[in-house]
């Protein structure tokens, strides 16, 4: 009932004299409400194969456009409350998948939390020529498979009866090891990020925006820009996502 607001002893001797402690009413915080959470069948992350069940015979061209630009899939949360958001494009191979699976499996409690993949198993074949050979001689054989990840995509989702502060340490640990910049994020955090972006877009004092100049082709800028810049609007450069633009 009594809760001392200052210090542990009854009287505080200080330069200003002796202060009398004040006891205040303890305000009880209600515990968080985890009512609307459904757990999937397997709470731990599924094992991802190195090679898909039907390995590809035909070697595919590089197609780096699956790294470029913003992601169109897996941008929002489905089951979980927290996740890792990719802020750049890149390829995830089996080593990354194992690292994620093991780190998250080690750090989370399978009884109270669950985690799900938001990226598919490696499907894109990557060829490598054997070391020490000159150019030419055809395309090399398939070396390994990767998954392409664009910026703005969620890699894993974690949920359950837990708070963001519990989940954040191991998610940051995982995010640092990924080949592209990534951050742990919650549903609120994502909403806030999008809201801030909107606000920035609305209260931008600069009358000249990249989008405006490119769509109107002012000063013939399109000569120096790619046709994709009409959609990318200066926020993406190669596989990089320029967070501080606009």
């Amino acid at each position, binding site marked *: 009932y009594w809760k001392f607001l200052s210090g542990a002893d009854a009287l505080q001797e200080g330069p200003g004299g002796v202060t009398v402690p004040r006891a205040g009413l303890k305000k009880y915080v209600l515990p968080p409400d985890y009512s609307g959470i459904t757990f999937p069948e397997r709470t731990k992350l599924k094992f991802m194969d190195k090679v898909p069940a039907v390995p590809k015979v035909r070697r595919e061209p590089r197609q780096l456009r699956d790294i470029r630009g913003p992601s169109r899939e897996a941008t929002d949360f489905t089951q979980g409350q927290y996740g890792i958001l990719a802020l750049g494009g890149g390829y995830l191979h089996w080593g990354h998948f194992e690292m994620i699976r093991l780190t998250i499996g080690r750090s989370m409690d399978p009884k109270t939390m669950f985690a799900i993949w938001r990226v598919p198993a490696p499907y894109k074949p990557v060829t490598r020529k054997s070391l020490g050979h000159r150019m030419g001689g055809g395309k090399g054989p398939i070396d390994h498979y990767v998954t392409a990840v664009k910026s703005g995509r969620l890699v894993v989702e974690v949920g359950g009866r837990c708070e963001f502060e519990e989940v954040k340490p191991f998610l940051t640990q995982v995010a640092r090891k990924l080949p592209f910049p990534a951050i742990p994020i919650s549903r609120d955090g994502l909403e806030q990020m999008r809201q801030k972006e909107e606000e920035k877009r609305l209260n931008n004092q*600069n009358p000249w925006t990249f989008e405006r100049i490119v769509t109107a082709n002012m000063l013939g800028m399109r*000569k120096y820009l790619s046709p994709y810049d009409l959609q990318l609007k200066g926020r993406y450069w190669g596989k990089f996502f320029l967070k501080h633009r606009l």
Partner: protein
Amino acid sequence: APVAKMAALRGGGAPWRRGWLPALQLVRHGSKAVTRHWKAMHFQRQKLMAVTEYMAPRPAIPPCCLAPKKEKVEEDNGYARLLRRQVEEAFRDNRMIAVCQYNSMPGEDMVLMRHYLRKHNIEVKFVLNEIIRPMLSQSKYKNLLPLFVARNILLVSPETKVKEMLRVLKGVPQINLLGACIDNTILSRQGVENFAKLPSLEAAQGQTVGALALLPSQTSSLLQGGSAHLTALLDEHIRRLQAGETGSPDESAPAQSSG
């Protein structure tokens, strides 16, 4: 890249255009759009990126110069409301409310003190300053406000048994009486002691009645003085006669003395 150089040496194709610089044109056949490294941007593109940067809004008056922030009044806790109601009831139902300073006491001493006070129908209540202070400042007990500073307790009772209360509190050195509100009169510590020294209500009533009845009783005694004196003399005479009967009986003496 080597193709363009060869074209330059040959003197045909792209290089014949004026303003051809190897640095600019070689970039065309350099790396792809998506690279692992940060691809060098064309200078015009760099200029465009610099021009179209985000500019944050700057209000005309900086926000620190504007009106100061109003402190948020916290929402009323249900528990706080319950405590407030209890305190209001205590103030309403009881005739005597004594405010005492509370220093930490051993548990068993506390229980004993409560027991003794309970015997005299005095209840010990713990109150929180942050609830009582706003309540008192709005009610008629404003002068009790300076008492509720540090840890304190309320001794409430429907009867006013101040003497017993003081006796119990004297045996407990950790509880010091600060003040009391008895029958809607605020008394200090001295006032409480004086109040204890007063006689009880019945005795005071008896005293008042006695004082009021003093004059009439004097008047009645004056009026009855003569006849009382006569009665006393007669009684004395009878007594003497009865004492003289054993010696020599004298019947004419009472007839002579009554005349």
